[in-house]
């Protein structure tokens, strides 16, 4: 029983990384921009947060403030990456795929350069327990859940609420569906796109920070961060562009990803080593199946935003 509980909590905790990444990507995609730079952005979110902690990690500032500063720095660094992406794809109307890929190359590289300069004893050893608040001293499964886990849940639900229950969300979705119409009714398309790509990137960046400082809490964690970014993009499709569903979707992904290490401990289930990579492959396979089914069923609500990937130029009729 305990094994299963640990397993569930661990899947949840691992999944929070994707909640951030996917929620950020969904907000971006809803404005009509496919940002393949999410892996790089998550990397930079991680680097930004850790850089801040490296500055203040051993100071006498109140732990809550240290956590807050870390989160803010992470968000800012990632949002700046989003701004680069936004400038190139919105103002300069560059190809979104190419810009995103360049951003991933740049972000992942820059993160590694920065992280190699930071001192893990400063940014990690001290602060990591602060991020586990309020369960830091518990001995059970809950110990692995901290502030940033709950922040992820709040952001996912909040993003859904904004997108589907507010005027701003409605107008943002209009921009992603049909920018010409949005423009005609007087919505500032450029402003919406910039805010969505930057805020989306900022949120995604928190995922990288969370993964390094909280979930893994190890100084090697940043090396495996990039691949999680791609999984976040997969999750967006898996949950059909609904942020609150990332909470469930990410748990499933987390489950599949981490169960290979737990599964051997569960009685009655014997799994060969070979099953591990296949389990890890599953999220992608399932995502592809979801993508195929939604395109065959052709239900309008489950399609990618209609103008995804297309630059908007008013003069072009």
């Amino acid at each position, binding site marked *: 029983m305990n094994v299963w509980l640990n397993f569930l909590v661990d899947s949840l905790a691992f999944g929070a990384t994707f909640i951030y990444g996917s929620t950020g990507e969904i907000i971006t995609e809803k404005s009509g921009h*496919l940002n*393949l730079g999410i892996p*790089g952005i998550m990397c930079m979110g991680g680097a930004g947060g850790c850089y801040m902690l490296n500055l203040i990690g051993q100071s006498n500032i109140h732990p809550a403030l240290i956590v807050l500063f870390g989160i803010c720095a992470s968000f800012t660094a990632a949002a700046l990456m989003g701004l*680069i992406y936004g400038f*190139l794809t919105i*103002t*300069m*109307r*560059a*190809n979104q*795929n*190419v*810009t995103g*890929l*360049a*951003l*991933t*190359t*740049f*972000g*992942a*590289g*820059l*993160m*590694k*350069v*920065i992280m*190699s*300069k930071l001192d893990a004893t400063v940014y990690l050893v001290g602060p990591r327990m602060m991020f586990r608040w309020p369960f830091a001293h518990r001995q059970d499964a809950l110990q692995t859940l901290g502030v940033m886990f709950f922040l992820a849940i709040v952001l996912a639900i909040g993003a859904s609420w904004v997108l589907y229950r507010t005027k701003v969300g409605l107008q943002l979705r209009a921009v992603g569906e049909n920018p010409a119409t949005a423009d005609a009714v007087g919505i500032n398309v450029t402003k919406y796109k910039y805010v969505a790509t930057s805020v989306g990137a900022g949120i995604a960046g928190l995922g990288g920070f969370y993964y390094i400082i909280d979930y893994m809490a190890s100084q090697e964690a940043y090396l495996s961060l990039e*691949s999680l970014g*791609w*999984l976040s*993009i*997969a999750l967006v*499709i898996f949950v059909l562009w609904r942020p609150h569903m990332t909470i469930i979707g990410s748990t499933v992904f987390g489950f599949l990803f981490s169960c290979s290490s737990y599964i051997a401990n569960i009685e009655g289930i014997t799994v060969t*080593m*070979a099953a*591990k*990579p*296949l389990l*890890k*492959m599953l999220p*992608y*396979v399932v*995502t*592809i199946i979801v*993508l*195929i089914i939604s*395109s*065959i069923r*052709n239900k309008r609500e489950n399609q*990618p935003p209609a103008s995804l*990937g297309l630059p908007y*130029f008013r*003069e*072009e009729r």
Partner: protein
Amino acid sequence: MKNKSSSPKEPLVHLTKRMDISPLCALGVRVLAFLFGMIICGLVAFLLIERLNDNPERIGEFYQCFIKGPFSTRRKLWKFLKNSAVLLCIALALAPAFRMRFWNTGAEGQTLVGVLGAIAVNFYLGGKIPEWQLLVLMLFASLLCGAIWAIIPAVFKAKWGTNETLFTLMMNYVATYLVSYFLVVWVPNGSSSLGKLSHGKLPSFYHDYLLIILIVLGLTILLHIYLTHSKHGYEISVVGESENTARYVGINVNRVIIRTMLLSGLLCGLAGYLIGAGLDQSITPNSVGGQGFTAIMVAWMAKFNPFAMVITSSLISALGQGAEQISQDFNVSGAFPDVIIGIVLFFIIASEFFINYEIHFHKRHNMAKEVLKG
């Protein structure tokens, strides 16, 4: 109230799509963008590299590395040529699909399964059949695997309009874990690393890399001929430009999509073969090492023109190798080349804007006049 509504809202800058720009001018814009990018790289380097920050006079040495890295010794030059060739091969594979506006982001996976096909044949048959037969079988396996990986998304795109960018992207990771799976099966001891196999190596003339380079150069010429002088290539261009026109002249668009992706997959498979049989004789999930993604940018920068890709792929691999040299000489992280490539790409991407659009600045007094008139 009245004032508010009558305030002119004309933006200061007005954009129009450029119909035409002379090739020389376009090249000039790109070169300028590249130079700007390099200057920014220098500035970023000051921030990131302590040794440079402490000794600013070493900035000359910093830029020299971009020559020293790829060209200073015979070994480095060969490595540069090999890197460019592999990158070029994958970019060539992407060209037909991109010309058709099929956004194949799955070159990484298509190439990786190509490597997998070759290594699988090598693993099971190496040493049991004559070497030349093994090499031929490996080639077929590579081509087949690459083709399968490309054709699956193409069929769904043609039949149901499934988003090809996302589909091909996901296929990359299925390929990665497929390789991990086979490694576990092949190397049961838990290390999951397959050593260099003793069979199935492409013959070497003069230099180990020469054959690969020649194959890719030959392929460049062939692909150029295919794209510009064959009926298939012509159909690809028509479909890419306008599906309506394609229908008007009776082209079966779905067939062209599937056929072109088949070609794209075959060429990726070939790239995989060159890596598997020509270079590594081994495989890891990272055998392609992100070159499938870099190739997208290489192809895009060259506007999907095979000969221009020779230049762009050389540029990217020279930059990468130069930056590697910097990592060594200045003692920074091995990831530094990615930062350099990323920055330069940003500038080249941005330069496209000045090639595609014309910018008109509104004159202030004109606006004032209009207000007066109103």
